């Protein structure tokens, strides 16, 4: 019996991450992710087709206006494929970011009535974005086939960049979700921020447009590393992610670890404030 002793006292100072507790609650993580996926397209006419319609529509619009009319260079790949291969990680990121940032507030009942490691909530929110990604991914392969592009061996790196996109979203999501509990301003900041970020990320254009000497600065936006890496793994192409990837990855790592600690630190007041 005493092996199960639990001590409850006010915590002070630095917190530990207590990742084993997160592992213990993996089933809850699974069920919450599963709930978010299940509920996502309930009572919609198009249902899961939305996962395809959104990036498809954006791709067509961008291909026409930027690719066809403005003649934005696309590093040798057909522009639609070029754009779509960036839209995939971008949408994964944008969705995961907004979901995780709002996740704590959206689950306030859970937080104020049940105990579990709160990290489960934003993590589940990020994971639930994967389903859309996989569906749209199928479309991407149709597109590749249509343009007769064969994936290179670099394709094996793709999962790493998918993970990278999710960790990026989670890193920001941890900060925002914890802040959102206290300041609901966050909710209004996210859509606006995501929109801004889209323009400074190489979605509709290639980062080769940015002068080489400024690329490290450009890569402070972690989505630069994510998108360029993703594109490289899929289409090969001239740019091989190097310094940008390193910069982006370091930024994400710092944000992520900082976010974890910040989240854990704020966690104890969630139930009182939310």
């Amino acid at each position: 019996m005493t092996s199960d002793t639990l001590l409850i006292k006010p915590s002070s100072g630095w917190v530990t991450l207590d990742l084993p507790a997160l592992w213990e609650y993996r089933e809850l993580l699974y069920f919450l992710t599963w709930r978010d996926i299940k509920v996502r397209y309930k009572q919609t006419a198009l249902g899961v087709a939305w996962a395809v319609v959104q990036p498809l529509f954006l791709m067509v619009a961008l291909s026409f206006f930027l690719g066809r009319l403005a003649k934005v260079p696309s590093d040798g790949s057909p522009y639609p494929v070029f754009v779509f291969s960036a839209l995939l990680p971008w949408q994964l990121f944008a969705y995961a970011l907004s979901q995780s940032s709002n996740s704590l507030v959206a689950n306030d009942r859970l937080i104020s009535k049940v105990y579990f490691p709160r990290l489960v909530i934003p993590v589940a929110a990020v994971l639930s974005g994967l389903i859309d990604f996989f569906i749209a991914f199928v479309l991407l392969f149709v597109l590749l086939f249509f343009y007769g592009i064969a994936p290179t061996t670099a394709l094996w790196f793709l999962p790493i960049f998918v993970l990278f996109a999710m960790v990026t979203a989670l890193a920001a999501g941890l900060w925002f979700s914890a802040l959102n509990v206290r300041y609901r301003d966050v909710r209004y900041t996210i859509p606006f921020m995501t929109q801004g970020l889209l323009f400074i990320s190489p979605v509709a254009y290639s980062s080769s447009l940015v002068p080489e000497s400024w690329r490290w600065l450009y890569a402070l936006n972690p989505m630069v590393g994510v998108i360029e890496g993703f594109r490289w793994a899929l289409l090969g192409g001239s740019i091989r992610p190097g310094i940008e990837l390193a910069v982006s990855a370091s930024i994400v790592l710092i944000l992520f670890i900082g976010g974890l600690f910040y989240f854990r630190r704020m966690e104890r007041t969630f139930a009182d404030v939310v």
Partner: protein
Amino acid sequence: MSEVAIRAAGLSKLYPIGERGSYDTLRDTLATLLNRSFRRFPHRKKMTAENRASSKCFRLHSDGQHAESIWALKDVSFEVKQGEVVGVIGRNGAGKSTLLKILSRITEPTSGWAEIHGRVGSLLEVGTGFHPELTGRENIYLNGAILGMKKTEIDRKFDEMVDFAEIEKFVDTPVKRYSSGMYMRLAFSVAAHLEPEILLVDEVLAVGDAAFQKKCLGKMGAVAREGRTVLFVSHNMTAILNLCSRSILIDRGRVLEYGATSAVVDNYLRSVYVSTGQSLGQRQDRVGNRRIEFTGFQLLTGEGQPMAHAISGQDALLRFEYSASEKTVLRNVHVAVGVHGRNDENLFHLSTDVSVADFATIPPDGSFVCRIPRLPLQPGHYSFNLFCKVSGEIADWVQNAGVIEVAAGDFFNSGKLPPSDQGSLLLSHSWNVLPCAQVTDLSEQAGSSENTGFHVG
């Protein structure tokens, strides 16, 4: 040592109250954050208790100055032994739920500590995390996982849960199509199948219709008998009396009393009435046009002698003093007294209009006296509401206006005291035994029971 399941020592929780307290501005926070990090990093090793204490002091100080705060719990210490079922009672806002929230780790104490030996499950609400779009089956799994059950455990108990909730036919229907009764039954059913060593329960029995409540209570009783440790918060005194051997009485964040349930419940009920505090005349929480105000209450013996408490089976007079705002004779006055039992249930109603007739005229000052022959109440405390209409309009209406204390007495004149745990009301009655052949003659028999039957009371 291992005997103890829960030990709390000096648990306290401070909550800020009011707008200012709960939402500080972003600017303020950023400023303190910046400040703190500058202070912290150069001397991180030196950031010791002293430093921390000063920053905490500052916070408390500023709390005291700007935002008001309140001790939802203050110095709460108690022990619960393994296998014990302990009730937690107290008025709304006394701190019962805060206590459970701390013990279930939802929120942290501000100071003090608690030690829990064993796997804890807490039920502060049923149906937490239910999603209206998901089916009953899906919600069982989701809710079970949220409450801390493993998937295999849910698999095993699934049929039992569905049976208990009586929703077999609707397992695959989204719960938003459920009636509220079905919804609550399902929610309780999942919760009821949680099997931790230590269970913390908050007021979850207040769901569903009477039949289902009874079923829930039965389930809780079964849980209690299985030897699990339970901490049970409720306003339902019957449930507390039935389930808990000992109880904790909490008032304004402090433990007032911890002991045998019947004594604690009795004291709690008394405190509820007495703590309304002011005498009847000074109460402001009343409704009506105040043409009359009740100003006092007295218990008298049948002969008109004042007494501290009434006695079961003896005549009692309830005397309600009143005073009118205009010093003229008032016409057409209706007075009613509603008497309530332990769970605030209506026991009976003493009203001028149905028993006799309203008073045609009354003097501007005086008292209404109600005689109850052979007071048919068990020992205990009974609160009452007072109601008065003058010329058809409500003049004064006071909830929980006072309490009638009743001491044990020989109601049936049988030389025995009635058992005190079998309801609150005592009724005169008689018993007969009839041979088979005579079943049809019951009315005659009853009429002549004075002579032939064994007569009680």
